[in-house]
């Protein structure tokens, strides 16, 4: 009996446009799980889905916008209502993102870098909150839990970014040339 989680068989897209960004996301997720279960045909299907993806400019833009929105929202949170602090956080975030992506970046690079930036901002806010005086031990404990979760998220984001950077540094590339993983896919 195969104990591995059964995932419905997913077909490659027939047309270039195939539903919302969420459905594309779910499909690639399913196919990745299938490929990990040892179904080689799923790898080909992922290639086809991702090949179609950059053609869907709105979806790529939506991801860049999502990243920008997340960074902006966290910059506001880190500012605690102080416009100057907000601006400083936004500048720091832009600098960090530029440092992580470099001059030429793919959509994947930008998303991974934004995840690190967002996790860094969330961690900064959590650290500031945890350092503030709490009126009650319950509040202090809640803040410490938030800080601990933010630390985990930051570590995970940095690990993911470093893993891919290391692999790319070694010259690892997908066999098929996919626009989504090529520089300037936006």
């Amino acid at each position: 009996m195969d104990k591995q989680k059964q995932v419905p068989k997913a077909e490659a897209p027939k047309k270039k446009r195939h539903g919302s960004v969420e459905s594309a996301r779910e499909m690639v997720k399913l196919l990745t799980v299938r490929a990990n279960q040892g179904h080689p045909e799923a790898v080909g299907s992922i290639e086809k889905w991702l090949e179609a993806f950059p053609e869907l400019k709105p979806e790529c833009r939506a991801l860049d916008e999502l990243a920008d929105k997340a960074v902006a929202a966290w910059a506001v949170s880190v500012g605690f209502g102080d416009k100057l602090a907000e601006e400083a956080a936004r500048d720091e975030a832009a600098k960090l993102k530029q440092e992580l992506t470099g001059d030429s970046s793919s959509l994947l690079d930008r998303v991974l870098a934004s995840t690190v930036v967002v996790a860094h901002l969330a961690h900064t806010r959590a650290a500031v909150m945890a350092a503030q005086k709490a009126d009650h031990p319950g509040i202090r404990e809640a803040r410490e839990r938030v800080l601990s979760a933010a630390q985990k998220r930051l570590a995970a984001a940095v690990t993911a970014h470093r893993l891919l950077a290391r692999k790319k540094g070694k010259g690892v590339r997908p066999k098929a040339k996919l626009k989504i993983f090529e520089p300037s896919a936006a």
Partner: protein
Amino acid sequence: MGWDRKRKGPAGGYFYLSVRTPAGVKKVYYGRRTAGHLAAAAVEQRRQARLKVRTAIQAEHDATADADRLADELAVWADLLSSAWLTLTGHVYHRGEWRKPHG
């Protein structure tokens, strides 16, 4: 526990407090006079303090709820795209890490 109104007792009832002991939960009698009212006030004070703490924690959570949602969504995408990239480059996710099988 609170005010326990007995069928034939006073309308206000008697104040009892449930106390956890190693032997189990004990019902402690405080009566209907000063001791009862003082115990009831202390219980209410503790309840209000707990509510205040809960409200403060919830307010701090709510302040970043939207930012948290966006961060979660971004993290899902980052995970998905990097998983796809690693799968396409011949890596396999095994025991919590991505490995490239030899051969």
